[in-house]
């Protein structure tokens, strides 16, 4: 006989419910409803995109940096808002692991050397956000948005002294739909200025063409990046 799943509320839903319950208590008192937010920080790949072994969707991406600019407009009660965002992310390609994988495969067959670049992402997106709890001028903001991201795949080359050039992947561009979701902790310094710490998840699935292989083909990479930023918010 099949066991019935326990009737529990998923943790995220529970948190959302609690936050929604306390929302009315946190109507903000600031006068200005528009804000410009600038931030910068680390970009950390995760999931398959960060895998650094020869498996199906490995991205060999390693930690890089990102810059982000956001224009925000809040509603009358300053709880809900919409935003337009532009951001740039650079991720290093894990050259050391890439080389190690080839060395593992070719073992005693010649000496390997690899040439790699880095991943570039230029995004433009729009979304909405919700201001939640405020404690001592510090508030938590949830945000989510969608947009388009221009992705650039790095040039890759692997050369073996015995076999010659064993792999080349040319640099290629692709524009794809992307999505972001995150949480932001903002502390207001005065009526116009705030500082914030944010954590965002970014996802995108660009297609790239590989023209160098015998069978020219298109492949996709499941890009997954965490953005951990600090920044300034200016209300106006």
């Amino acid at each position: 006989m099949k066991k019935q799943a326990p009737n529990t509320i998923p943790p995220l839903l529970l948190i959302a419910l609690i936050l929604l319950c306390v929302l009315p208590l946190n109507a903000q008192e600031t006068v200005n409803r528009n804000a410009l937010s600038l931030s910068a920080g680390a970009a950390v790949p995760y999931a398959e995109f960060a895998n650094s072994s020869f498996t199906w969707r490995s991205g060999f991406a390693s930690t890089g940096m990102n810059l982000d600019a956001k224009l925000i407009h809040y509603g009358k009660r300053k709880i809900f808002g919409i935003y337009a965002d532009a951001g740039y992310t650079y991720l290093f390609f894990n050259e050391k692991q890439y080389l190690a994988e080839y060395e593992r495969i070719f073992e005693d067959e010649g000496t390997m050397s690899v040439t790699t670049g880095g991943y570039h992402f230029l995004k433009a997106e729009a979304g909405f956000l919700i201001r939640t709890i405020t404690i001592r001028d510090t508030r938590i903001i949830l945000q989510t948005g969608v947009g388009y991201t221009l992705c650039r795949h790095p040039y890759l080359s692997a050369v073996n002294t015995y076999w010659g050039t064993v792999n080349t992947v040319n640099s290629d561009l692709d524009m794809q739909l992307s999505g972001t979701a995150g949480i932001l902790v903002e502390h207001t310094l005065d009526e116009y200025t705030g500082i914030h710490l944010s954590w965002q998840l970014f996802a995108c699935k660009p297609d790239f063409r590989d023209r160098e292989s015998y069978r020219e083909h298109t492949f996709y990479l499941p890009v997954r990046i965490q953005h951990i930023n600090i920044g300034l918010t200016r209300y106006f």
Partner: protein
Amino acid sequence: MHTSGKILLLSLALSLATSCDQYRLNLDIAIVPREVTNFTDVNSTHDDFNSAGPFYAAGDAFNLVFSTNRNSNGADFDFDNYMCYINYDQVNISFDIWPDPWNYPLLDTINSMYNEWGPYLTDELLEYYYQDEALSDTGRFFFSSDREGNQDIYYCYYSPGGTVIPGQAPASVSSLNTEFEEGYLCLHPEAPTDKEMQAYQEATAYQETTANQEILIKQAAAPNTETCYFTSNRDGTFDIFKATGEANRRIETSGVLQITKVDLLSSSADDKCPYIVNNMMVFTSDRAGGQGGFDLWYSIYTDGNWSAPENFGPGINTEYDEYRPVIIPLEPGLFLNDMLIFSSNRPGGTGGFDLYYTGLNKRGETNASGT
């Protein structure tokens, strides 16, 4: 629905529709690894050796004919055949061969209660398959057998379906055979020089040079005599001999052959099993300078001459016997290199002589030391 909503949905649909399902490759083309691998699924506890393969393995499958005494429980050697499917992965970088027993009707006619060794299939049917106007609709199967006492070279004609042409049972290549042992015949198409090729191309307005057309051009521009190499002990030990047929006649139908011992390839020890693909001859010899027992050697044909034989080195040879090497030329562009199949009685096999495969260096080049 609002316009913005429609645009968003359309974007999502387009994004999904244009996404592909392929992977980023870590090899531009497949490579047969240099590691020597036992053909475990082909080998038996008896002796399995003396293989032959196709002269052009299109795609990723080829048929493998070899001698084995498994079917007679060790009494005599017969030919057996497997279809081999190459499984290569350019993402995870792996290489494997899946052999599958495959009934080759031709072999039922050839196999006897005596020994059959050294199979060799000619490439005439390659032209049949790849050419609009076939030069020939039959292939030739050469082999050696002791069915008449000593080991002699035989041939038979077969059709594209792999059956012996009716009324043409295996016959002796009488102009080659003597009272001594002869075996392991292989043809050597004398390739025209680059200058001859260019002149022929200009004369015939043949501008395309795909792999198949190149074969045809070479054949059309080549000399009208046929040349083969074989092994014989007519001079005491086993040596490598060259035979040239009469003009416009094939080896097996030439009444008189010009036969000469190839001194550069022969030694005072036993030199056997020559097998030629393109400009490379591989053979086995127990001459000095090897790793012990019979070793595999190779020689490159340049400007009408064979180079001094070189040992394949300890990566392939061992102190045990390595025997009957054959080159399987894999499709250029799909594979970076060719495959070498040979047999050995080294420890770790399934018993007796086993078949092994390994990757050779780039086409037309060989580097035994791997440096």
